């Protein structure tokens, strides 16, 4: 996982304060060779930015202060110009991470991929069991391909992380999943959140874990981290709901210090918000980034504007997302049931194991 040097972390704070888009996620394509059941992207039949278009978009981001960039998809490696794009990003000073399903990485291209200068690779793996992963992606052989890619990238010296979505099918296997990551020599990151898709699809939400399942999941997680108990207890104290400090804190970095770019050049506040801010090729980026009405309204909000959360005991464990709230509840200041359930379960497990 990409770890930024301290001098850049300091710049992140400045970017947050002055609304500089220091971090971007660039969906290079919405095409994909897998059919993951939770995927939020709807596959449009629109013309993607050309290689020159992508490079122009990178130039605009660079001129506006973007330093870290995540290249994502769909599956970004389906673009035949991916190596040129990654090399250009390196040349123009971006710190790049590539999100990929790993299935298109093999012996023939792994060195070329590492040599593009990508700083970190994140590969999606949905289970430590081959059959379960392949059922989740709906493509047989995808587990072998993904874990094979992890091994090849690691052997080539790359920084690799595997990431997952914890859900009904894999939550009970946290221990063995973490063992798989350890065997592969990589970190496993994951979160138990499943979102409504871009076109409003919610069929996969039945994979969300119940509170009891989440307590079981987090119990496994905290059991493994018991040795860090003191440190975690101190962290918890700092994260408790404190109205006075939170009244000045923005809800999140969406359209504040980060943005999402889709394959057609449209710019959004983040990966989850569907509100288009403008087009990076056809519109004046600086103007719409500053002046877009939605962005201005969102930037004015503070954590304490989420009234339901004021003083909440679960706040330290909460990852409320205003974009998810907007999709699910029609109100970005109304936390979703999912976020509340996850936070409560995490708190319960934390108190049981760590406190």
């Amino acid at each position: 996982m990409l770890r930024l040097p301290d001098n850049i972390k300091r710049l992140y704070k400045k970017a947050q304060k002055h609304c500089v888009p220091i971090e971007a996620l660039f969906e290079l394509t919405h095409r994909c060779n897998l059919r993951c059941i939770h995927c939020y992207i709807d596959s449009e039949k629109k013309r993607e930015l050309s290689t020159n278009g992508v490079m122009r978009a990178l130039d605009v981001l660079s001129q506006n202060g973007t330093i870290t960039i995540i290249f994502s998809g769909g599956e970004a490696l389906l673009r035949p110009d991916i190596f040129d794009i990654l090399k250009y990003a390196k040349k123009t000073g971006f710190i790049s991470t590539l999100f990929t399903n790993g299935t298109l990485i093999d012996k023939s291209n792994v060195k070329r991929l590492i040599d593009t200068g990508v700083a970190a690779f994140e590969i999606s793996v949905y289970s430590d069991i081959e059959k379960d992963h392949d059922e989740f992606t709906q493509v047989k052989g995808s587990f072998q391909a993904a874990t094979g890619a992890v091994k090849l990238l690691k052997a080539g010296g790359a920084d690799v992380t595997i990431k997952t979505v914890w859900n009904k099918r894999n939550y009970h296997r946290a221990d063995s999943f973490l063992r798989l990551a350890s065997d592969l020599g990589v970190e496993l990151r994951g979160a138990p959140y499943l979102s409504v898709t871009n076109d409003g699809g919610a069929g996969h939400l039945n994979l969300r874990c119940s509170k009891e399942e989440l307590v079981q999941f987090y119990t496994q997680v905290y059991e493994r981290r018991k040795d860090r108990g003191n440190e975690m207890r101190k962290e918890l104290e700092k994260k408790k709901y404190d109205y006075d400090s939170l009244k000045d804190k923005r809800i999140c970095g969406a359209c504040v210090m980060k943005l999402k770019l889709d394959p057609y050049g449209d710019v959004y506040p983040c990966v989850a918000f569907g509100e288009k801010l403008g087009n990076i090729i056809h519109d004046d980026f600086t103007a719409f980034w500053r002046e877009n009405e939605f962005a201005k309204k969102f930037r004015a909000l503070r954590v304490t504007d989420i009234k339901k959360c004021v003083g909440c005991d679960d706040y330290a464990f909460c990852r409320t997302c205003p974009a998810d709230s907007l999709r699910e509840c029609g109100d970005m200041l109304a936390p979703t049931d999912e976020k509340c359930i996850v936070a409560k379960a995490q708190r319960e497990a934390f108190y049981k194991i760590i406190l």
Partner: protein
Amino acid sequence: MSNILNKYVSKIDKIAYRTIVDEVVVMTPDDSMLHTLNSIGSDIFSNINGKKSVKEICDIIYKDYDATEEKIAKDVSKFISELVKKNILSLSYAPVT
């Protein structure tokens, strides 16, 4: 440090940089290093375009900072020399067109 005041200074082509509000961060692709410049360093860097001599840059900085001309000349020269060593800037006897 030799006297570089009459030399012209330019940014090396292959470096990349960003301006975050009033601070410049320079990336050197060969070693993937990120160099953040302080406020005065960022001001100096922003004035480097291959067409100005170090002396001309000192004159611009002198107008904005409360220090003697000698002190500014010494500090600017030191800063530029350090970035030359880091392969971020280069010096020449004539302006770069």
